[in-house]
């Protein structure tokens, strides 16, 4: 089993086409949509977890690209600014993958980038905006830069 976390950008002209379902039907892949939105300019953005045989995943990625979807790996995209973080733990309540969690012995707030799926929910929930998206947010998820 091979898994990839991806940010997909759908240009305006293809947002009305069924594309993601083909990953399942044609390439025998399993997908999990963590976030999907259509931006005001009608461009679509999706954070997607894709898993299956490595060969099929690569075929699926080729198919996405050939359909006009811009594909980006999200691994390591979210990072924590340790200088800003006040160790409160507000982020741990909304993190869907427990990448942000608390060490129960010390009550320290831990960020494990390996478990992060790049949904970016933590970015605006963090009261001191310590969670950052490494690349330009406008380019990747359409978030405003604080």
């Amino acid at each position, binding site marked *: 089993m091979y898994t990839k976390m991806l940010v997909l950008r759908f240009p305006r002209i293809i947002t009305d086409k069924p594309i993601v379902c083909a990953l399942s039907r044609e390439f025998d892949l399993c997908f999990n949509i963590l976030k999907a939105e259509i931006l005001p300019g009608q461009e679509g953005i999706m954070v997607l977890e894709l898993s299956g045989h490595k060969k099929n995943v690569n075929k699926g990625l080729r198919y996405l690209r050939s359909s006009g979807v811009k594909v980006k790996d999200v691994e390591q995209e979210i990072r924590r600014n340790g200088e800003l973080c006040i160790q409160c733990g*507000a982020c741990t309540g909304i993190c869907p993958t427990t990448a942000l969690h608390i060490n129960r012995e010390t009550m320290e707030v831990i960020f494990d980038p390996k478990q992060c799926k790049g949904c970016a929910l933590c970015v605006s929930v963090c009261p001191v*905006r310590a969670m950052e998206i490494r690349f330009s947010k406008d380019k990747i998820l359409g978030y405003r830069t604080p």
Partner: protein
Amino acid sequence: MADYQVNKTFKEINDRIRSGKAVVVTAEEMIGIVREKGRVAAAREVDVVTTGTFSPMCSSGAFINFGHSVPGIKASRVWLNGVPAYAGLAAVDIYIGATEPRVDDPLNKVYPGEFLYGGGHVIQDLVAGKDVVLTADAYGTHCYPNRHIEKKIRLEQLSFAQLCNPRNACQNYNCAVNLTDKTVYTYMGTLRPRLGNANYCTSGQLSPLFNDPYYMTIGVGTRIFLGGGEGYVACAGTQHDPDVPRTERGVPRKAAGTLMVMGDLKGMSPRWLVGVSILGYGCSMAVGIGVPIPILNEEIAFYTGVSDEDIVTQVVDYGKAYPKGKAGVLAEVTYAQLKSGSIKLEGRDVPTAPLSSYVRAREIAGELKAWIKSGRFLLGEPQKLLPS
């Protein structure tokens, strides 16, 4: 007045602090001492217990005198980095409140609003030594003819900048959940639908007022750790309400006592006064507070031995009940349960999340302990205890 086996006074404890002999422990360390040795022996051994809390605390702000310009101005409207300050005090006196957003903030027009900069951020910028742009408008008077000024101010140049927070260090607070089918954005954080998470907001066994539940040692003039510097308890805070249901050992089951605190901003640090943005709710400021509790007798020793297992709070639905002003209490849980990472509600395991930093609270209790042990921080004997 109860008869105690141990009787100490503030003066005796301060003498021991001055001579470097005082025994000072944190509220966490005190739990084991009371359990092991009993309250009387603990009271004989320990002189001071230090507490700590670091959390967003609304009802915070600062009084600032920004100095006269030439020609003079009687400022009627004032902004600091675009954040409105209250100017209806005197010609150049203002109060900047932590929850005031910048005048051009889009607020919740694009929901949920981000509230990236507000009064709390202004205060943090000031204590960080940064320049802050002050703009003032006036209608002009004979003695103060200026109608508009704009200047940069910096904390070190101000003759008076006093943090003055009307309600801090709440003794207890609700644990918030959401029973509806939609995410809600509250002052208790983002709450996912259908009991997705349970947020709580005090440092529990380290929290100042949990360690002195009947305010036997805290009152007007109590010297405290405030924002990384020295501050004082001014009086009971707004919404201070000692008359709430309590457990057998005096722990209030819901919000009860509060503190109004003050201190010179110049001694404080941006590590302990931090502007915060609460998604969909507004801006505020996280404040670090530590209160030293003198162990005057064994009853106080007993109270400072409180642990997370002894502290309870109410789980309240912030999806529907709370906004409508209904009680909406779903359960009572202990802080030990909250801190374990999940609580059982309606047959489900609901993950918990703190909004108050336990790590930083522990750091404050440790820092205050070090200050007292070094002899540089003496206890302030209250002139009047808080209403209990």
